[in-house]
């Protein structure tokens, strides 16, 4: 497949401009670039969702033009979206044939075909399993199978590893290698440069809507790649010297939260072992089970864990949107367990929410109103009962300036900014109120490398000034690099702790699947619990 001179003048922050991309048959081709660099536009063009204004697409030397995804599928192009598009209450077989019933029917022939594809590429998919019983990795394989079932010869995978733990990532990469050995091509879109280097045969880097270079994995380091993406020198996520004090800021004791509703699939307890083990995790009755920890001033405590193991509930309990069923939260010596969210925020709890679109921003409101959000009772946003738009506007300009939020003004809506700039605004807002304790949930998710570095800098700066941080992230490098202490959450419990100075992502990943617990030591042997310290174990 070959793309030449693709240009798209398009309502977006960055349009595509003169993009060149050549994907060789039987290879994995990685497409990397900052958020908002134009990757998604390019993908949409490739998949027929949008038409390029200029440029050509050729497949096997033949020039093609796609009017819709159906055309792209007919040409053997398939897409696995970041958010799975599966019907939970249908079986794998039903999901796969849905929409392409004409190919192999919906009965035995389709089942045979699914089996055949599954065996050929080592996908290990059971056609009659209900999708709702499957874990994330299995779902992803179903998506891949769906695409192959429709006869795809070129697969586009959009951030496929974002939701996977390292072991699952390895399994996925094995699948990809199977695919390319069968002569299929894979276009692999990712932020995670380490992964890209390990799986890709070719790499194309996009910056500001155009292709800025290609790289050969064997001759490139992640740093070089990142610099190519950002176009400048990169800071590292490592924290330098420890700033941890012995002054506790946040103390959580035996915090337990029950699931709100009756659990739906209580019977479907994870079948021990394997990659799907966390599938039923969110459905247990105690979504947070007897969690205790202390965070001191100047300390960043990282929480590692596969999503859905209680992180959201922990955040909710700390910020006060969900109240603890038992246990206590003490903040600067005061028991804040019964406090409402607003009082907690006023007293110095900062919050970078995990889903900025749902929890951190009013997308259709201007930036300066977003600056007020969460701090409506505080200066400079309010004067007593009255709002102070002038003050808020002036302060928004300051944040835009200081945090390098790229925007033409503070009157544009939050929705019109790119993800990284939205996040910088949120970080700027939370830091502007001198928090004593910051909940940072996935602070750099979906944020481009440049903004990521800035955000890390800000957190580190505040930490030096005595801020206590709870860092929750799916990015293990970020966790290890930024944290002073690491805990692993699994099935609502803090099951393990580790020293970020010595632990590797692989060891951490193993604990995240529940395979290891206790204190994780970096050893030559497989990581296992050396001492029997339970979750009550204090962070140092």
């Amino acid at each position, binding site marked *: 497949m070959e793309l030449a001179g693709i240009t798209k003048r398009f309502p977006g922050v960055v349009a595509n401009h003169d993009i060149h991309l050549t994907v060789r048959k039987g290879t994995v081709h990685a497409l990397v670039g900052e958020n908002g660099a134009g990757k998604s536009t390019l993908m949409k063009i490739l998949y027929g969702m949008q038409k390029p204004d200029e440029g050509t697409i050729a497949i096997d030397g033949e020039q093609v033009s796609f009017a819709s995804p159906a055309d792209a599928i007919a040409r053997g192009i398939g897409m696995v979206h970041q958010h799975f598009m599966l019907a939970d209450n249908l079986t794998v077989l039903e999901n796969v044939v849905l929409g392409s019933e004409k190919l192999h029917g919906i009965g035995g022939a389709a089942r045979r075909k699914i089996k055949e594809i599954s065996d050929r590429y080592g996908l290990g998919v059971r056609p009659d399993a209900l999708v709702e019983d499957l874990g994330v990795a299995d779902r992803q394989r179903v998506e891949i199978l769906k695409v192959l079932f429709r006869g795809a010869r070129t697969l586009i995978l959009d951030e496929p590893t974002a939701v996977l733990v390292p072991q699952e990532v390895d399994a996925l990469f094995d699948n990809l290698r199977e695919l390319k050995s069968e002569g299929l091509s894979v276009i692999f879109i990712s932020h995670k440069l380490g992964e890209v280097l390990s799986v890709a045969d070719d790499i194309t880097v996009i910056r500001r809507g155009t292709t800025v270079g290609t790289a050969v994995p064997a001759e490139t380091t992640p740093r070089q790649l990142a610099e190519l993406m950002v176009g400048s020198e990169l800071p590292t996520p490592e924290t330098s010297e420890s700033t941890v004090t012995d002054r506790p800021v946040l103390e959580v004791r035996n915090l337990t939260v029950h699931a709100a509703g009756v659990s739906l699939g209580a019977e479907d307890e994870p079948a021990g072992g394997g990659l799907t083990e966390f599938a039923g995790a969110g459905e247990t009755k105690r979504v947070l089970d007897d969690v205790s920890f202390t965070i001191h001033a100047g300390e960043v405590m990282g929480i590692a864990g596969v999503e859905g193991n209680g992180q959201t509930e922990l955040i909710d309990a700390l910020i006060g949107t969900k109240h603890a069923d038992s246990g206590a939260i003490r903040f600067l010596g005061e028991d804040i367990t019964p406090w409402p969210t607003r*009082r907690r925020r006023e007293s110095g709890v900062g919050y970078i929410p995990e889903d900025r679109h749902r929890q951190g921003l*009013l997308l259709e409101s201007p930036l300066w109103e977003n600056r007020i959000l*969460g701090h409506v009772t505080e200066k400079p946003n309010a004067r007593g009962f009255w*709002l102070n738009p002038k003050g808020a506007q002036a302060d928004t300009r300051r944040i835009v300036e200081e945090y390098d939020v790229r925007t033409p003004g503070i009157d*544009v809506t939050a929705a019109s900014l790119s993800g990284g700039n939205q996040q910088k605004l949120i970080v700027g807002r939370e830091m502007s109120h001198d928090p004593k304790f910051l909940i940072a949930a996935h602070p750099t998710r979906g944020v481009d490398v440049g903004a990521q570095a800035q955000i890390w800098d800000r957190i580190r700066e505040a930490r030096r000034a005595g801020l206590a941080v709870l860092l929750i992230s799916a990015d293990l490098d970020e966790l290890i690099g930024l944290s002073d202490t690491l805990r692993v959450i699994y099935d609502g419990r803090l099951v393990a702790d580790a020293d970020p100075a010595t632990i590797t992502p692989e060891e951490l990943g193993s604990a995240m699947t529940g395979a290891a617990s206790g204190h994780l030591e970096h050893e030559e042997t497989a990581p296992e619990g050396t001492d029997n310290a339970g979750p009550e174990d204090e962070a140092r």
Partner: protein
Amino acid sequence: MKKFDKERVLTALAGPVIALVLAIVLTSVVLLASGKNPIQPYALMLQQLPFSDIQVLIINQASLYYIAAIAVALGFRMNLFNIGVDGQYRLAVVMTAVVGAHLALPSVLQIPVLLITAMATGAFWAGIAGVLKVTRGVSEVVATIMLNSIATAVIGYLTLTDVFGVQVGDNVTTGTMKKSGWVPGIDLGSDVGEIYGLVFLAALLGIAYWVVLNRTRFGFDLRATGASETAAAASGVNAKRMVLVSMLISGAVSGLAGLPLLLGDTHTYSLSFPSGLGFTAIGIALLGRNNPGGIALAALLWAFLDKASPALDYATPVAYDKEIATIMQGLIVFAVVISYAAVQQWSLRRQQRRVGAELAAAVNTKKEVAA
């Protein structure tokens, strides 16, 4: 700044203008389909506009619509659908009329007491739906619809002659209110009529609505809740309290909706007191985009259609059906929903493009400097 202001005015006007044009075109199609002149009815209605008695009727009617629509809009701003404005204002009118008929204080006290009675009644009735939603999770849509029916029954009871009702001929009233509770209007002569004194209350409510929403902490919380419940919760808004409080305020405002007519003209509640204002107000709030200025224009437009359309009945040589106006009102609501969604999409894209363009320009100039 300036440029974005212009932009906003453009997007704010595009929706209603498209809706109106669409509605007029569709109405003309209806007229054509029924073999009538598709243009003349508009001309006939517009000819009514210069008459000052028609203007007075329009302004008076618009004041009722405006207050009710403000009540609806308050709910809309936080994603609450207060369909119960109708029941709330009718019940409030009855209670106010009863109090006004049995209580005799000097005007300075009487009128505030009556206003408070109306607001308290409306707030109480809306509050029931609020409490149900907060404590039992009952949808306010369902609750308020049911409360409308219950209000009708309660009014039926209150107006029984052995309760508060006073029978006048075959009509049932609540007795004439004491004169001290009458709100004098602006008399423009017997030919023209009188503008209700409480028209100014409507205008004040519009201003208060804007100030509260845009200039107070409470208003910000309310808007935030409407824009994104999850974001509001994370920012420390107590959603339940917010639901209850905004239902109460919405109800209090709807309680006032019937008062310009009650205190300015009829001075009693009777079987012929207009009902259904609350439903009309939903369309008006939609057309006005929940914006106090927009709602004012929408209320005036609605009142114009109401008051100018009877002229169609008297047209010579061919009379038109005044239901043309009703058809048009319906089509406006219909068109508004579509056009607003479309304009919103369009304006977001437009803005993103502008942001992109401006950033690109900024980058280019930087590059040039660097080079």
